[in-house]
């Protein structure tokens, strides 16, 4: 299966970027898991961690507050004013 291109950015830097097979984030409506081929999405994140399963199987968790997640054409962008790798 194709991979997702994931960018995690905060107001003053790019926190993480790379290929991933799955991204799990918590939006206002609840947790959402994103795999390749997901429909375009724009969601508001509620406080909580974002879990990324990297393409090589590694796991990355990041804290993102006051942010949003956007998915389009297999590119996932998680942007938050204060985002940091946990």
């Amino acid at each position, binding site marked *: 299966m194709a991979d997702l291109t994931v960018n995690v*950015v905060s107001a003053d830097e790019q926190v993480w970027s790379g290929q991933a097979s799955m991204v799990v984030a918590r939006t206002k409506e609840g947790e959402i898991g994103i795999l390749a081929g997901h429909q375009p999405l724009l969601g*508001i994140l509620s406080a909580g961690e974002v879990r990324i399963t990297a393409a090589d199987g590694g796991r990355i968790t990041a804290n993102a507050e006051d942010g949003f997640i956007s998915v389009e054409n297999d590119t996932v962008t998680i942007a938050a004013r204060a985002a940091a790798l946990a």
Partner: protein
Amino acid sequence: MPAQVRVYRSRIRSAQTTKKITRAMELISASRIAKAQQRVAASLPYARAVTRAVSAVATYSNVDHILTRESENPRRAAIVIFSSDRGLAGAFNSNVLRKSEELAELLRGEGKEVVSYLVGRKAVGYYRFRRREYVQDWVGGTDNPDADTAHEIAEAVVGAFVKDTDEGGVDEIHIVYNRFVSMLTQTPEMLRLLPLEVVEGVEQPGESEVLPLYEFEPDSAEVLDALLPVYIESRIYAAMLESAASKHAATQRAMKAASDNADKLIREYTRLANNARQQEITQQISEIVGGADALSSS
């Protein structure tokens, strides 16, 4: 005339000490420009992500949001002026203040009342000296802007925008800041922040693909509600970072000019001092020779 020589010497010394200071300031700001530019570059991915998200909502949904709505009869406009905390930067602050005056004049010509929000001590000083009113100021962090200050400013201006005009709210928000064009050029720019103009930058889907149907969580109106203030904030943060980079570049250039000028002064005064010293010696010789002549002829 030993007094003359002494005066020249002290002028040379004074120019030398001043030059040491300006040279140090030049080097300091030179090193800070690079850092400020890196911060501008580092903030780009976030700004891009926010802009794309906003334009995605704007393109794929038909929400009418208060922040994008033009007031039918705008009566009050706010200007946010980004100056610096410190001077010694050539025309940096006077440029941005002059630009803001022009903008204010223009807005008043359109029949709007103008209120100001100030960033940086220099703008505050300018307003205080002229005993002018301003709504709010932020000082102390212009050399090293942080996202939290940008958040505060954004909250203040969006709050004022959302309020009714009759209750002291504003209908338009403009920002004036120095844009970093290159190390040598920084131009004052003005920009209308609110109501928002249409933005571009959504990735176009491929030819064969159907126009992607965006899914909004929770729904498009709420997403826009959360996104637009963030967008404003990121624009303000970008302006602050650009202004900081411009300030360092302007300081560097002003201090370089000052050091060069000190060099020139030192050279001139050294010439004059040498001249005076030579004259003194010549005079002494002629006095001695004249005295000896007078003695031998008697």
